[in-house]
């Protein structure tokens, strides 16, 4: 745990020896972390930052894996329904189209953004940031893109969509014959890779590497 700073001497300390909690504004002396450790705010418990091993390389591998899974996850059928000899398939994309074509354009846009648009944008932002660090080019754009990424973070809702798929399966299972498709497998994998990526890609190290304070922060 980091030590809260003695108020009398705080103005004399240089900024890079301090850290403040983003959620409760408590000012502390910055602890030095070994690999694999993380610092939490002693007052509110917020994770201040973590120090992880080979962040850039591991994240790059995961981003590329996620991007490869993205297309099959969204365009291969998640399930197929057979009713009285007719079959219909569901993909993430066809759900968006279905809403759009029945006059619910507003909801179609929201569903598109939360389940396809923003998750893709997030991955592309992460890829751009990681490449910018790795190849040491365009860091000022990297900073901007990483800021955009942080604004998008909460709005990608793959895990909620997966829960929606489960609810729909249960609702339909009694009514008609239902087959699950390859798209579902890809979708679950995409979700897992993306969650893993968010754990590995420790923001503090990425910011440091991007800003040039410590170019090897992500190694």
């Amino acid at each position, binding site marked *: 745990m980091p030590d809260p700073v003695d108020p009398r001497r705080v103005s004399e300390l240089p900024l890079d020896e301090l850290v403040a909690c983003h959620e409760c504004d408590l000012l502390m002396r910055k602890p030095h972390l070994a690999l694999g450790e993380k610092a939490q705010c002693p007052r509110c418990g917020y994770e201040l930052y973590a120090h992880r091993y080979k962040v850039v390389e591991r994240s790059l591998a995961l981003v590329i894996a996620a991007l490869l899974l993205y297309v099959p996850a969204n365009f291969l059928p998640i399930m197929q329904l057979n009713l009285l000899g007719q079959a219909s398939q*569901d993909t993430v994309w066809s759900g968006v189209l279905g*809403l759009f074509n029945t006059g619910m354009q507003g*909801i179609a846009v*929201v569903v598109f953004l939360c389940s396809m648009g923003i998750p893709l944008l997030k991955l592309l932002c992460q890829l751009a940031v990681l490449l910018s660090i790795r190849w040491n080019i365009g860091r000022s754009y990297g900073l901007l893109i990483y800021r955009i990424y942080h604004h998008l973070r909460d709005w990608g809702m793959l895990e909620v969509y997966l829960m929606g798929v489960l609810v*729909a399966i249960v609702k339909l299972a009694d009514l008609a014959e239902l087959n699950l498709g390859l798209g579902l497998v890809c979708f679950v994998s995409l979700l897992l890779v993306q969650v893993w990526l968010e754990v590995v890609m420790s923001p503090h190290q990425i910011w440091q590497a991007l800003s040039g304070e410590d170019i090897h922060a992500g190694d």
Partner: protein
Amino acid sequence: MRAIDAGILICGECHELNRQDPETDEQTCTRCGALVHARRPNSLMRTWALLLTSAILYIPANLLPIMTVNSLGQGSPSTIMAGVIELVQHGMIPIAAVVFIASILVPTFKLVGIALLLFSVQRHQPLSARQRIIMYRFIEFIGRWSMLDIFVIAILVAVVNFGRIASIEANLGAVAFASVVVITMLAAVTFDPRLIWDNTESDDDHE
């Protein structure tokens, strides 16, 4: 001690520390270039505004049908609650519970919870800072799960598509419901959690 008391501002985006510059109103972060504020400007007012908007939309979201099931020429519209009841009648209690929690409990809890947070921050009562931060984290974490019903509708509309035999279409209630979810999420983003710890001198000792 709070960073604001030491004249230090935290960047809201990259969490870099910046010394407060008394001469300018619009200070930007030295690392990422975002605007830095000691506290998000007008956080409480904006959150109140978003909260009221979503509270108004909450009424049509629950009263209007969210989708209509057309089967052999007959259409039966259903509201959120009707969908839950139907699941219970089919004996699918666990899924009914999930839908009930995501679509009814969570939005209601969020509206009440954000109102309580705002009220307690403004009046310095009736919750302790620790209770408030738990409430804030819970609201922030759970908000997205209310989109569940919207996604279910999207999937059902796509898969139950057999022309006259059976089809499903979305209705206006779903629009109102999606708006409630998005606007309450925005309200959680607008609320500045650092306000929770201001004015709580007794909790400031962080034992």
